[in-house]
């Protein structure tokens, strides 16, 4: 193992600049002569725009322009495209409404972008925005998911009767129905996967800088996938040639999915920059982020599971209504379908599963992927069902899981919901987690808590997740309008140092460290001599970016392929220099040698020869040492694990405190254990937020965003968390060269279910069987108030 190679907790190279304020974020960038944009957003959930009068605003100090939807239409600027087409259960395509970058006639959610005011300063733009007179004709809005499909509910889109975007199904309902008929017991849940607002530390920002001299667009933006933005914006929105557009995503302060999508502001600043001949900058303030970043989750689900007399799962039936918001965000349609229903087998052998998903339009902010994207929702459904199944059968929650796990020797395992798992060891993971969490000592801890007036609960979640969504041909066959490969380029410089260019994008994950470790290990180059470059479409080969915990599994694999090409070429050069047969050359720890001899050349010597080809097999080999690769995975990867949460409820107030949390995750090969631990920590914090604190609230009548700031939207704080006990029990991925699975989302996927199961466990003695997520103090208090039993 190299000193900074695979398996070493190398300190993150990014942290020096992040922690000392030397990061370079989009808002840190200022272009000479730049103007500032302020977006005027709809104050109404649903309104007709009767008239916009910008004449006063245009006279405001420093104002350069006010543009509206009419200008967008005049310039034939296209709408934001959706990247996934879901076909419904009858073979019909989903309803795919337009998504204009500035709306011309009608607003469809609070925060919808109506006009842009551009001025010399940000303050002037904002001042002038108040002078724009917009005459709205307010309409009744469809807000709540439960009411959206009811007769008479206002339509978000005329072309979507009942506000249905698609009505999709997976599985064989007849087989499932038959299984339910033979069931000894049936367990049911009726649950809410609460809507979340992403809240990355850095709000979104964009600078459009049209270069008049060359006719090129430069976009600086807070994106997780700059090439995807370049493709979508150039081909569908601006309709300009892709080679004339450069998208640059410098340091990005967190994304969690919300920065995957192509947003209107990116196109607006580019278009306006060309029109005005000056750079145009826009930075969201926090309030704007709340009402314009795509939200996450928002499902209503009824699910049931059929069991035999021994507690074996026979079949599962899941009916979900998923909120799309007012428009289809870039990947929205695939989240409650292919990233959700395909996970419903969990870690269990349930032979038959049927799932129906209705995607619904409402007059709310679009909903798309948010850390976990579909998998936390699925995990919550499955793991709550499993605990309910334990309750109705009287089995211990660990025991019912043991009886239903896919056994270690059953891989590759074909689930009834399309996917085939490659590896896993669910029972061992459970046993390790139970031991770490001192499961057998729980009764004593519960008694001790009771003495202090606290109700203690323990909850498990033995979840599965799917990362590195792939292969391209398969995702294409189910509606993806993109490939899901990744690119990598490895450049060995003449003196032997290395630059790695990756199509992945790091916005907090630490790729600059992890990917350098891959190269240190494989090429035997000193860690300090490796630089990782990402986020600039002018520098790096076309890449798909970072989301779905795909960077290492897909992007890392592309780099391995590129490095293997470097090594293969190096062997040829070494064979020439050492006057040996290529087949006799070995490469190890950065050195090419003739097997069994002490004749050798270092990688630096080889690259020197490649760039100064005086003594070089020039007839057979090109000079230089630089290789590129694209990697298209053959399958998803399937991380999994066991999370054990322990909570205490204050009986008098209903406050739930997470007091202990154990995570044993299977993430495949670990490159940097410290980064893995950090990813799990962050994910668990967000999962705890979903379980206990966070919940986007709209006024059900007016569609106003009630949780529009930190005064009302509860983010997790350090004091809400105990010290997390995080470890891994890994089985290797069998189909990528590194054996890696992915760790970016596991924390957020497994933990909400574990915590909510713990809450249910704590209130079970009172006969309470349902507490809604998030388990806020008043909800828990009310559940206890109306409890059927007095307990004890």
């Amino acid at each position, binding site marked *: 193992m190299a000193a900074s190679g695979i398996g070493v907790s190398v300190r993150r190279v990014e942290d020096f600049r992040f922690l000392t304020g030397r990061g370079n974020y989009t808002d840190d960038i200022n272009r000479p002569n730049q103007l500032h944009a302020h977006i005027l957003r709809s104050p109404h959930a649903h309104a007709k725009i009767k008239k916009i009068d910008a004449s006063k605003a245009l006279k405001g100090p420093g104002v350069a322009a006010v543009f509206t939807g009419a200008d967008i239409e005049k310039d034939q600027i296209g709408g934001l495209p959706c990247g996934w087409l879901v076909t419904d259960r009858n073979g019909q395509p989903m309803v795919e409404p337009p998504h204009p970058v500035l709306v011309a006639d009608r607003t469809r959610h609070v925060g919808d972008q109506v006009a842009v005011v551009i001025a010399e300063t940000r*303050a002037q733009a904002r*001042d002038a925005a*108040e002078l724009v007179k917009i005459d709205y004709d307010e309409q009744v809005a469809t807000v709540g998911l439960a009411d959206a499909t009811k007769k008479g509910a206002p339509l978000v889109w005329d072309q979507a009767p009942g506000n249905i975007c698609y009505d999709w199904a997976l599985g064989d309902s007849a087989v499932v129905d038959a299984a339910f008929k033979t069931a000894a017991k049936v367990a049911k849940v009726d649950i809410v996967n609460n809507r979340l607002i992403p809240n990355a530390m850095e709000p979104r920002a964009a600078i459009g800088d049209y270069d008049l001299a060359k006719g090129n667009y430069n976009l600086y933006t807070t994106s997780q996938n700059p090439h995807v933005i370049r493709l979508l914006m150039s081909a569908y929105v601006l309709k300009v040639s892709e080679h004339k557009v450069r998208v640059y995503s410098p340091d990005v302060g967190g994304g969690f999915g919300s920065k995957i999508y192509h947003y209107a502001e990116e196109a607006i600043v580019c278009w306006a920059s060309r029109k005005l001949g000056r750079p145009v900058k826009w930075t969201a303030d926090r*309030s704007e982020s709340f009402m314009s970043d795509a939200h996450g989750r928002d499902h209503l689900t009824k699910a049931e599971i059929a069991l035999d007399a021994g507690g074996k799962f026979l079949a599962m039936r899941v009916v979900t209504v998923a909120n799309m918001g007012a428009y289809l965000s870039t990947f929205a349609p695939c989240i409650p379908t292919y990233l959700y229903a395909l996970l419903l087998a969990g870690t269990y052998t349930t032979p038959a599963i049927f799932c129906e998903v209705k995607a619904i339009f409402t007059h709310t902010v679009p909903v798309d992927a948010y850390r976990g994207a579909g998998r936390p929702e699925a995990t919550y459904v499955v793991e709550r069902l499993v605990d309910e199944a334990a309750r109705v059968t009287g089995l211990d929650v660990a025991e019912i899981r043991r009886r239903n796990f896919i056994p270690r020797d059953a891989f590759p395992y074909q689930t009834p919901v399309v996917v085939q798992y490659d590896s896993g060891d669910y029972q061992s993971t459970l046993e390790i987690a139970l031991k770490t969490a001192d499961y057998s000592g729980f009764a004593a801890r519960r008694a001790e808590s009771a003495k202090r007036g606290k109700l203690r609960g323990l909850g498990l979640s033995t979840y599965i997740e799917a990362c590195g969504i792939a292969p391209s041909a398969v995702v294409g066959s189910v509606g993806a309008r993109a490939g899901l490969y990744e690119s990598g380029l490895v450049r060995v410089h003449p003196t032997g140092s290395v630059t790695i260019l990756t199509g992945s994008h790091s916005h907090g994950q630490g790729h600059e460290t992890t990917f350098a470790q891959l190269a240190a290990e494989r090429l035997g180059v000193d860690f300090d001599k490796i630089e990782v470059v990402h986020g600039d479409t002018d520098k790096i080969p076309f890449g798909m970016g970072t989301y779905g915990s795909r960077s290492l599994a897909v992007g890392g694999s592309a780099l391995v392929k590129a490095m293997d090409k470097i090594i293969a070429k190096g062997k040829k050069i070494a064979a020439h220099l050492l006057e040996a047969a290529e087949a006799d050359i070995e490469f190890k720890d950065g050195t090419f040698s003739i097997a069994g001899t002490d004749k050798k050349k270092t990688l630096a010597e080889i690259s020197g020869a490649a760039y100064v080809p005086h003594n070089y097999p020039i007839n057979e080999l090109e000079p230089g040492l630089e290789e590129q690769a694209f990697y298209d995975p053959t399958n998803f990867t399937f991380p999994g694990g066991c999370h054990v949460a322990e909570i205490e409820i204050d009986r*008098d*107030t209903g406050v739930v405190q997470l007091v202990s949390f154990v995570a044993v995750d299977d993430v495949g090969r670990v490159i940097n254990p410290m980064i893995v631990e950090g990813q799990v920590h962050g994910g668990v914090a967000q999962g705890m937020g979903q379980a206990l*604190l966070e919940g986007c*609230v709209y006024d059900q009548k007016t569609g106003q965003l*009630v*949780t529009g700031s*930190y*005064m*009302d*939207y*509860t*983010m997790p704080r350090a004091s809400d968390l105990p010290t997390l006990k995080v470890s891994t029990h890994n089985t290797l991925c069998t189909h990528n060269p590194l054996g890696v699975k992915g760790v970016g989302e596991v924390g957020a996927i497994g933990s909400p279910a574990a915590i909510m199961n713990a809450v249910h466990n704590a209130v079970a003695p009172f006969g309470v069987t349902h507490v809604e997520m998030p388990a*806020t*103090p*008043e909800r828990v*208090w*009310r559940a206890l108030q109306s409890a059927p039993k007095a307990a004890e």
Partner: protein
Amino acid sequence: MYAFNYHRAKSVDEAVKLQKSASEGSFLAGGHTLIPTMKQRLAKPSDVIDISGLKELQGISVAGGTVTIGAATRHGDVANSPEVKKAIPALADLAGHIGDPQVRNRGTIGGSLANNDPAADYPAAVLGLGATVHTNKRAIEADKYFKGLFETALEQGEVITKVTFPVAEKAAYMKFPNPASRYALVGVFVAKTKGGVRVAVTGAGPGVFRSADMEKALGASFEADAVASIKVSSKNLNSDIHASADYRAHLVTVMAKRAVAKANS
């Protein structure tokens, strides 16, 4: 934020004059209420008159059974003051639970009382201890100072200069924080004073209020059990996404019980 004129006053008198001559003048102390509202463009003062540095508004002193706190004294200074901790530990404890360290390092007692946010903490201590709010014009008893939602007895041109708190025999504050903002969803201050028991409730209603029932019960027996079955009416209490009026009413009892237990411990 809209443009405004900034003044740094040299005395309270000058501050008052500056305000008088402005079309809409606002005093600025810690700025932790005023500046956020200006940033949101909800407040639009023509002139901002900074009084945070005025010597006459600073300082903490304890003498003759009275704790005196200058209006521009920051929450953090009250929280960490050895004198306050000794004389009225409940007051230091309350100040130490306002907002977060950044807020406590800027926000002032005068600003908090002038603003009288229904979810603010200090009003509970001022009413609960029967303190006196001193201004450049007069001294106002706590019972006459708070007038409901963001309303106080302060008149135009009136500046809070200091607050005097009588030292109580026993006192404690229990706060149930709003999970998002950490202001008081419900906060109860109980004090056993020379003049009798006082119970002040913040967060629950449109403004801080006293509970006569609880005061009576605790007057008879200053024990947690004495208030365990006393429920304030939920009729005029606040209701929002964090807590219904019923739940708030329930929390008042729970916090009162806990405050009494804490005061006795």
